[in-house]
């Protein structure tokens, strides 16, 4: 059992995957010599050499396009996009090429590639370095989207993403890069598409992912003082998402709140609420509540940013609302 940071867990997963499979290569801006802007890939170039770890110039479109071509040959490129916001520069390669190649070419080839990108605010990075755009990618058939919340899950899901024969958008929490957690010596494994129930409860279900998981757990603790017993599900995967675990929980609690840092409108919460409404309307004792960011760009100033992402209080308020 080792205590290590979220960012070191990612580096560990990359290194272990590269040890296990010579086809795994890394491509990204400053990930080699400089060890990555957040230090995630530190040491990997020294260990694996310049034919496994490729430093790219600031060319997101060419990097991801090249990863598509490399994956067509059975290589397993893992591309780092420095901030999720910069994925906009590679959208053709992601959406038109990577997502469609397997389908569009009649299944001739799979496209085993991972595109890592950190999302989220909380570090004063402003409107173009803080966005949570995972719903965009979850809307595109052919892509998988995962968003792990802690050390064990970020390790396990990155290994699963690299082993997956499809393009996976791997969303990291940049505000949690330094957060410590335990990585068991027996390395954890995970399946893309499986959620984790982190806290059992009878009265209401909170479905969440990413950095909002910690806030949902804190809200559940606070609510327990008032005798409200909340189940907290860490979705982990957004596309595909674990419908069974969520429906099963709702069939017991009959109340659902979906919370995430991304913009509430047209978001992941909207999809989950609609799905549960369609599939389990009779199980619900209250309308499904969504808790997400307001419909505005992520503001810079700390005084605004602290109220932007849903915190413990807003999640608790939503649970009380469905309990009315």
């Amino acid at each position: 059992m080792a205590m290590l940071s979220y960012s070191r867990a990612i580096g560990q997963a990359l290194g272990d995957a590269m040890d296990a499979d010579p086809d795994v290569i890394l491509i990204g801006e400053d990930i080699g010599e400089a060890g990555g802007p957040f230090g995630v890939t530190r040491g990997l170039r020294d260990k694996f050499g310049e034919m496994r770890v490729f430093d790219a110039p600031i060319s997101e479109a060419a990097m991801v396009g090249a990863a598509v071509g490399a994956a067509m040959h059975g290589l397993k490129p893992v591309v780092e996009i420095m901030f999720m916001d910069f994925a906009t520069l590679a959208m053709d390669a992601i959406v038109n090429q990577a997502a469609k190649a397997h389908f569009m070419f009649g299944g001739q080839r799979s496209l085993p590639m991972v595109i890592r990108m950190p999302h989220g605010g909380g570090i004063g990075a402003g409107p173009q370095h803080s966005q949570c755009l995972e719903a965009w990618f979850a809307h595109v058939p052919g892509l998988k989207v995962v968003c792990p919340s802690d050390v064990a899950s970020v390790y396990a899901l990155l290994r699963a993403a690299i082993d997956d024969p499809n393009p996976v958008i791997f969303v990291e929490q940049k505000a949690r890069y330094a957060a410590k957690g335990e990585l068991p010596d027996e390395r954890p494994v995970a399946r893309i598409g499986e959620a984790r129930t982190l806290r059992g409860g009878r009265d209401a279900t909170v479905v969440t992912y990413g950095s909002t998981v910690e806030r949902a757990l804190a809200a559940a603790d606070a609510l327990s003082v008032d005798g409200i017993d909340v189940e907290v599900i860490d979705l982990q995967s957004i596309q595909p998402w674990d419908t069974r675990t969520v429906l099963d929980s709702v069939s017991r609690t009959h109340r659902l709140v979906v919370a995430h840092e991304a913009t509430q409108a047209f978001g992941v919460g909207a999809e989950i609420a609609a799905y549960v409404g369609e599939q389990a309307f009779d199980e619900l004792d209250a309308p499904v509540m969504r808790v997400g960011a307001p419909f505005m760009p992520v503001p810079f100033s700390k005084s605004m940013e602290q109220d932007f992402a849903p915190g413990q209080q807003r999640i608790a308020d939503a649970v009380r609302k469905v309990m009315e």
Partner: protein
Amino acid sequence: MRIRRSEETLSALFANGEVPGFLHLSLGQEAVAAGVMSALSETDTIASNHRGHGHSLAKGMSIDAFFAEIFGREDGLCKGRGGSMHVADMSLGMLGANGIVAAGVPICLGSALAHRIRRNSAISAAMFGDGAMAEGVVHESFNLARLWELPVLFVCENNGWAEFRPTSKQIAFRLEDLAATFGLPYRCVDGNDVFAVAEASAAIVETCRAGQPAVLECMTTRVRGHYEGDSQRYRDGADDGAADDRDPLAIAERALRELGVEDAVLAGVRAEVDREVAAATDFARNSAHPSIADALSGVYASAGAA
């Protein structure tokens, strides 16, 4: 000849409604496809563009499966899911035509990277049109290819038209100068003379095989509109690219006759191609229509897929 007759046939089948969707023909540009592909080996890879029929057939794609794909049928190379703009045959190193201008260019970078990592002597050739020169990813790709010393050949098929306006109104630089900016070897050739293209390609492919990127510009002509059905009101008749002295097939025939190839041999080739195209048309017509249920199960690859 195979490309010419295939596209003429597809044009007629499109006009009578049998071929659906968009059709971007490369009539007048056949010598580029034939000449460049003659210099590539089986393990070399290419990525093509929306005007990619010629590249596909010249790389060796099965004409039956090619026609079936353009008809949108089950026996198509892509099971009818891609169509004219997405024909691909990975087993031939043909990494796909592409509906997005310039998108195949960085895909070739990755293919060339794979060749380099695996230390084989193959190269990757990116086929793009003059219009693609305005796309930023081409400039990114020239830079990355040079930085990583990738065995990639950038082939610009300059037919003088980028969609509906002449290249001169869309591109403010010369490709030769752009190549020089990135330190890439550059060669320009008459893209309507298949022998000239083949010779230039063979030479520049060796440069790439030695481990460096290079640029080949082929000056050619777009006989048809941007797509089939394009009325081309923007174009005056004098410049329709169909003049006999610029027709790549006429040029090739003249050259072959000068080499002593007899008319009977040429007539034999023509007859054989006609038979192939007719058979491919029948094959496509008789192939089943694919179902959406099958396609739905093909969005994601399952574990253990190739």
